[in-house]
C-alpha cells in the first residue's frame, strides 16, 4: 500500500519525505491544479528541486494537473503537461478528457492517474478512462461506502487510490458548483473552492460572522470555534431550523478501515492537504506511515492507536473526524 502525500512547497515536500511518504504530489502555481492558492505550489525551478529531493531519497513524484482546461486557454494546460513530462514525473494526475488525450498522444510512456476530480465511481467509468487513455490508477471520490469501494475494487482493471485523511469534500468531486454559484470561481475551472479573496470575517451585533462574496455562511457565539467559510459546512436555515444542513466542520479519517481497504486490494492511500503547513504534513504523514506499516505487519489484527487518533484529531477541521461516506450511517 503506497502512501501518497501532499506538498504545497519545498518545506512540505521535505517533511513528507522525511516522515515516510512513498510518493508526493505537487501542482504548478496556477489554475491548472485544484489547490490554486496564493503563495502555494511550484514554479519550474522549485519543481526541479522537488524532483531532485525525491530522486535522491528513492520516492515518487506525481504532478496534479487536475482542473479542466478553460476554453480559449487550452495551451496553458497543455504547457503544464509538457512541464510535468520534462520533469519525468512518475505520474500525472488528471481529470480533463481533452488534456488526457493530449498527454496520451504526446507522451505515451507517461503514467496517467485519474484525478478524483473526474469523479469515476463505477467499473464502466474506470474502463472508459483505461481504454481511452490507458490510465494506470484512479483516485476514488469521497462518496462511496466501504462496501461500494470493495465492490469497485473487485471489478476494476486499474489501480485504485482512496482518501485516508484531510478536508472532507462531501459532494462528488468535479461535480460541485456551489463555490462558483456564490463566488464565480469553481474547483473545476479555477482550482479553488470558496476562494480566499471572497472571504470576510466580521464582528457584528450577533457575534462573529463569516461571509463569502457577501453571503452569510455562519455566525458564531463567543464560545464557538469559527471555521473557514466553506459553503458545504455553513450553518443555514431549512424549514425554520438553523443547522449545519449539509455537513459540520470536520475532517475525513479512514484509518480504522485500513485492514479492509488493504484486503480489498486498494493500492494507495492519499492524504489531502497541499494547502497545509510543513508541520501539519510532518505529523500527519508520520502517523499514517506508522499505521500503514502496522497494517502490513498485523493485517486484520490492526488497531488504531490512541496516539495516532490524538494527532489526527488535533490536525482536523473543527477538531473532529468522521469516516464520511465510507460509513453508511453518515450518508
Amino acid at each position: 500500500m503506497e502512501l501518497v502525500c501532499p506538498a504545497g512547497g519545498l518545506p512540505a515536500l521535505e517533511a513528507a519525505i522525511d516522515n515516510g511518504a512513498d510518493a508526493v504530489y505537487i501542482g504548478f502555481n496556477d489554475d491548472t491544479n485544484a489547490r490554486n492558492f496564493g503563495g502555494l505550489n511550484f514554479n519550474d525551478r522549485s519543481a526541479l528541486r522537488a524532483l531532485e529531493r525525491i530522486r535522491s531519497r528513492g520516492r515518487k513524484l506525481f504532478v496534479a494537473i487536475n482542473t479542466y482546461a478553460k476554453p480559449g486557454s487550452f495551451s496553458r494546460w497543455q504547457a503544464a503537461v509538457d512541464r510535468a513530462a520534462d520533469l519525468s514525473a512518475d505520474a500525472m494526475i488528471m481529470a480533463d478528457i481533452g488534456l488526457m488525450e493530449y498527454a496520451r498522444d504526446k507522451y505515451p510512456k507517461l503514467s496517467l492517474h485519474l484525478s478524483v476530480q473526474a469523479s469515476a465511481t463505477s467499473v464502466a467509468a474506470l474502463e472508459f478512462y483505461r481504454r481511452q487513455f490507458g490510465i494506470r490508477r484512479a483516485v476514488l471520490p469521497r462518496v462511496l461506502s466501504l462496501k461500494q469501494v470493495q465492490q469497485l475494487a473487485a471489478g476494476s482493471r486499474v489501480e485504485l487510490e482512496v482518501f485516508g485523511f484531510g478536508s472532507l469534500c462531501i459532494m462528488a468531486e468535479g461535480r460541485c458548483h456551489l463555490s462558483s454559484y456564490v463566488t464565480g470561481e469553481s474547483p473545476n475551472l479555477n482550482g479553488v473552492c470558496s476562494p480566499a479573496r471572497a472571504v470576510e470575517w466580521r464582528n457584528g451585533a450577533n457575534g462573529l460572522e463569516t461571509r463569502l462574496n457577501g453571503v452569510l455562511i455562519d455566525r458564531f457565539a463567543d464560545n464557538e470555534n469559527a471555521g473557514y467559510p466553506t459553503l458545504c459546512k455553513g450553518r443555514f436555515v431549512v424549514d425554520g431550523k438553523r443547522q449545519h444542513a449539509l455537513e459540520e466542520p470536520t475532517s475525513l479519517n479512514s484509518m480504522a478501515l485500513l485492514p479492509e481497504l488493504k484486503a480489498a486490494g486498494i493500492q494507495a492511500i492519499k492524504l489531502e492537504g497541499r494547502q497545509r503547513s510543513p508541520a501539519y504534513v510532518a505529523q500527519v504523514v508520520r502517523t499514517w506511515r506508522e499505521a500503514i506499516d502496522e497494517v502490513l505487519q498485523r493485517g486484520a489484527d490492526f488497531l488504531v492507536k490512541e496516539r495516532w487518533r490524538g494527532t489526527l484529531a488535533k490536525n482536523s477541521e473543527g477538531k473532529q473526524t468522521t469516516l464520511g461516506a465510507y460509513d453508511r450511517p453518515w450518508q
Partner: protein
Amino acid sequence: MQLALGPVQYYWSRTDINQFYESILSTPLDIIYLGEVVCGKRHQLRAADWLELARTLAEVSDKQIVLSTLTLLESNADLNWVRKICDNGQLLVEANDMSAVQLLSEARLPFACGPAINIYNQRTLSHLMSLGMVRWTAPVEMSGRQLGDVLNACGSKPEVELFAYGHMPLAYSARCFTVRHLGLDKDNCGYRCMEYPDGLPLFSQEDEKLFVINGIQTLSGEPVNLLRHYPKLRALGIDILRISPQWLRMEQVVAAFDSARRGELNPDLLPQGVDGYWRDHAGLELIARSGADSTDGCHT
C-alpha cells in the same frame, strides 16, 4: 431554436409523473428528456417503467423522446439501471456520467451528454464526438463567453443545448440532505423527498434563498432564466434551450420561451431568476433589471 424539457430532478409519484407528461404533450416543446437522474433508490418508476413511459410517449407524439441516465452512480445496482437505459434499442440516450458514455460508445450508439459531464473545451468535445456524441448540454457554470470560445474553435460541432430555465443542479453527494434534515438515515429514508415536489429550500441566516435540497442533490436557490438573452443565444449558434421541470406553472415558462422564438420576446413574461453564470459572474447574481445587454458576458 428547439425547446427541450429536461429530466425531472425531483421525486414525484408515478401518477404525478404520468399526468405531468400527459400535460406536456400539448405544449410546443420539441424534445423531452426523461428518466431518474438523481437517486437510484427512488422506485416509483424503475428503469423498465421509464422505458415503457418513454416508448409510449414516442408512439403518441412527434416530439423527440430522449432517455436520461443517473448522474452519480454508487453501486452495481445503479450501473445496472444505467445499462438497461443504454440498452433500450430505440431511443437516444443522454449520458449524465462517464459510465453511460462508456456503455454507449462501446455499443457504437450515438449519445447526448448532459450538463453534469465535464466538457469545458473544444478538445474534450471533439474527443467525445469521435466516440459518438451528437448533442452537448454545456455545464451550468459555463458563461456565454466561454461557450462562444469553445464553439468558435470547433470545426464540426454537435447540436448545442443550454440549460436556459430552472433550478440548476449544482452538486451531488453520497449523503441525502433531505433525510439529514428530517433526522432519518438513508437506509430507512422512507422516500420522504417525495413530500417536497420542488425540493426543500435552504436559506442563509439572513433569509437569502441560497440552495434547494433535493435528496442527494443540491440545486440553485433561484432558477436560472436566460429568456431575455434569447437573441444572443441564437446568434451564438445554440440549437436547443432546456427548460427544467418544476411542479407549478410549467406551461407559462414554455409559453414565454415559445413566444421568444416566434419573434415576440417579452422578458416580463418571466421576470424572476438569475443569469450570473451566463454573464461570467457568480451564478446567483440576479438578472439585471435594466442594461442587461451591456453587462452580457457574450462577446462573440
